[in-house]
């Protein structure tokens, strides 16, 4: 691949980039009597259905000494229900060529179903079972804890993962976003089946749930099928528990993590703003000009002209209770100082002068124009609309986004840079040998 990272990060940046070409509603939305938000997008051409269910029970809800609890709960959903064992669930969905995966993110636990249209009934049976009546069998809990521990151990091989973990700790001190979704080896070792059962009982509730159904299905059909399986799920009387928004970070810090590798991974990061902040759209454009694509300043200076890196980019990463902005590059050991200098210089230049007309128009044209490509499959639409709903942005967010990005001026980009790109405000992590 020539630019694999650009492509990979596109999905992470989806919310930051998106805007539809057409003004037609992206999905039908209704609130079911028990509080579930149902989203339906009809895409009749291909006989498949993608369903995405999100429950506000992500890692941000982990108790302070139980990092990784949401993740463990998420991966255990498909490991046994009152009706089927884990292997039976696997066999049932795979026999029809479908897939059912569950796991946790920072803000929510998500389950994704993909089936051929004739298997939608079966798929929704399985999906509702894993959400509503997982049994968390003790031997499956033990097995998953062992697997998560092994995955955490193995991720120590991956300098990008090591750097991202260390940087999150520095960017979000004292907030759950500072801890890895999967937890740490110490915190995972403390988790018990009782924790999981309690977490599921307290956090899984219909008024914290979004179900997006996308594909060869009508609104009526989707409503009927979802109500038939989730309709009797009772809404608790208690209010939804809140989560504190990340407070401002402390003084920026730097960490060097030695690894015997041929490259060093350099990551800068700091807190930023969510989609609800008026400067957000200017920040997204600023980040694109700086390190968003293969016409960006970082790509041009560090890769094209310098030959210093294969991978160099920046991106905004907004979540429900906080946001961050990151810059990253991988380079050979000897060039670490030079790359750091370039990253700093390009960040600072963004604060000193507005982008050129050509840069601004390219960034805006790409961010607005590439939107239809990001919603070209049913699974992508299901992921998008459920995420929009979860973040409380409204189904018109895509239209607003397009309109707001199109209005961003060069001066606003510079102001956003002045607010977020001052080099001295970044936490820094380097993984690798340093020269």
């Amino acid at each position: 691949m020539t630019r694999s990272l650009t492509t990979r990060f596109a999905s992470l940046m989806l919310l930051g980039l998106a805007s539809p070409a057409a003004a037609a509603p992206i999905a039908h939305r209704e609130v079911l009597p028990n509080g579930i938000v149902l989203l339906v997008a009809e895409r009749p051409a291909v006989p498949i259905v993608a369903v995405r269910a999100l429950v506000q029970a992500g890692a941000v809800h982990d108790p302070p000494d139980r990092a990784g609890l949401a993740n463990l709960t998420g991966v255990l959903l498909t490991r046994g229900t009152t009706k089927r064992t884990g292997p039976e669930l696997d066999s049932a969905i795979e026999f029809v060529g479908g897939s059912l995966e569950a796991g946790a993110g920072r803000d929510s636990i998500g389950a994704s179903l993909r089936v051929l249209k004739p298997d939608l009934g079966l798929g929704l049976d399985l999906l509702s079972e894993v959400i509503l009546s997982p049994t968390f069998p003790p031997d499956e809990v033990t097995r998953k804890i062992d697997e998560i521990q092994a995955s955490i151990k193995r991720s120590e091989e991956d300098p990008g993962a090591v750097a991202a973990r260390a940087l999150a700790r520095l960017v979000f001190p004292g907030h759950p976003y500072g801890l890895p979704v999967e937890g740490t080896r110490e915190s995972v070792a403390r988790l018990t089946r009782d924790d999981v059962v309690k977490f599921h009982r307290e956090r899984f509730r219909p008024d914290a749930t979004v179900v997006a159904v996308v594909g060869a299905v009508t609104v009526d059909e989707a409503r009927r099928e979802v109500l038939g399986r989730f309709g009797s799920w009772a809404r608790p009387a208690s209010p939804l528990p809140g989560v504190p928004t990340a407070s401002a970070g402390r003084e920026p810090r730097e960490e060097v993590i030695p690894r015997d590798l041929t490259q060093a991974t350099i990551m800068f990061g700091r807190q930023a703003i969510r989609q609800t902040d008026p400067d957000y759209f200017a920040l997204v454009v600023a980040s694109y000009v700086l390190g968003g694509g293969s016409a960006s300043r970082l790509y041009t200076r560090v890769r094209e002209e310098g030959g210093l890196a294969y991978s160099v980019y920046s991106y905004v990463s907004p979540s429900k209770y906080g946001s961050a902005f990151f810059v990253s590059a991988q380079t050979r050991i000897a060039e670490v100082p030079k790359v750091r200098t370039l990253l700093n210089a390009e960040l600072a230049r963004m604060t000193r002068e507005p982008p050129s007309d050509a840069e601004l128009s390219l960034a805006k044209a790409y961010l607005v124009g590439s939107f239809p490509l990001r919603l070209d499959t049913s699974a992508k639409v299901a992921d998008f609309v459920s995420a929009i709903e979860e973040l409380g942005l409204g189904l018109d967010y895509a239209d607003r986004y397009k309109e707001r990005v199109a209005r961003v001026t060069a001066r606003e980009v510079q102001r956003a840079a002045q607010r977020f790109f001052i080099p001295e405000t970044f936490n820094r992590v380097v993984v690798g040998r340093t020269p």
Partner: protein
Amino acid sequence: MRRALVVFLVPLLLGAPPARAADTVVAETLDNGLRVILLEDHRSPIVSFQVWYRVGSRNERRGATGIAHFLEHMMFKGTPTHGRGQFARIVEQNGGQDNAFTSQDVTSYFVNIAADKLDLVIELEADRMHNLLLDPKEIESERQVVIEERRTRTEDDPGGFLGEEVASIAFKAHPYGSPIIGWQEDITRITPEEIRAFYRTYYVPNNAMVVAVGDFRAGEVLERIKRRFGGIPRGAAPPPVLTVEPPPNGERRVVVRKQAELPIVYLAYHVPNQRSNDAAPLEVLSTILSGGRASRLYRYLVYERRLALEAGGDYSYFSIDPNLFWFWATAMPGQTPETLEKELLAQVERLKTEPVTDEELRRAKNQIEAAFVFQEDSIHRRASLLARFEVIGGYAQKDQFLAKIRAVTAADLVRVAGSWFPEDKKNVGILLPKP
């Protein structure tokens, strides 16, 4: 992906659009030999435009490995009409996404973009098919970028590193033994003259195909392609790859020590490609072994025995020349590579004597068929699949693929396992973590 470059095509194999009556592919070979394959898909106002060259690491000679991939990078470095970086810049300015990859057999470039921008892409692709600058200064700079890419993918990635070693011992004659990205010494040495000669030899219309799927009228687009590509002169027929890998005469084994957290074991056997009647059974076998959590290697090595963090099997159905069937597993902490190898081998041996169950066989066939339908949801993947089948002998082979899969019996699987997985001719790779 564990072995990104070595077995690049494998994960794409599962899935492709089924032949439906409504799908009318328009195919024509222009006078200059350019193959054009077009398929209308009017669901969204977008198009995937892809140019595939029939050249990959397979066409490289010893001492110049990695040249095909190096040239892929240079294809973004400009022509006299569109200077360095302009290709990506123009595509982004028009809201499009572009990238490229090099495999053992092909080099592929794609642009996904709004359908009304298609002429622009036709112009850009036609231009760089014939007018690439290949400025020596740019080559020197990009050489460093490619070496950084190699560091990321191979030198600093235990799985990628081991995969390269195993392929290199498995093939003693055929270029499939060389890494797609090339040996570092070769990347460092290759001269601009060699790259220029490689470009002139292989980037000719008679060695390329244009594949597009999207919201257009095929007849009109064909005329536009003829107008712009038709003037590019036909080149001499590129030299055929004549090397036939001699049959293995014994077991080959490589053990590498590297900074890593968990041991990895690879087993690889020489197998026939899609020209053989054994290809469809091998494809089914690969799905039975690693298609999901109900598959054999997961169920047994990961789930029941808890020996592996992950395990699977891979077959390259689309390989132009006969290639390898891979088995692989990453050990759980505390498990030895010896145990893992023994258990992987036991699974291989079991295939030779014990027919798979009817459920396993039906599940694998259903998974392969469903994946074909899922793939149809994306115009990019529809285009890629047409191209893949065209590379191995004609896009229409797509229509026979499922029939071949459906015809596979449990006895076929016992037979092909017996024929192609000889215990005394296996290739074994072990990665031992170095503390």
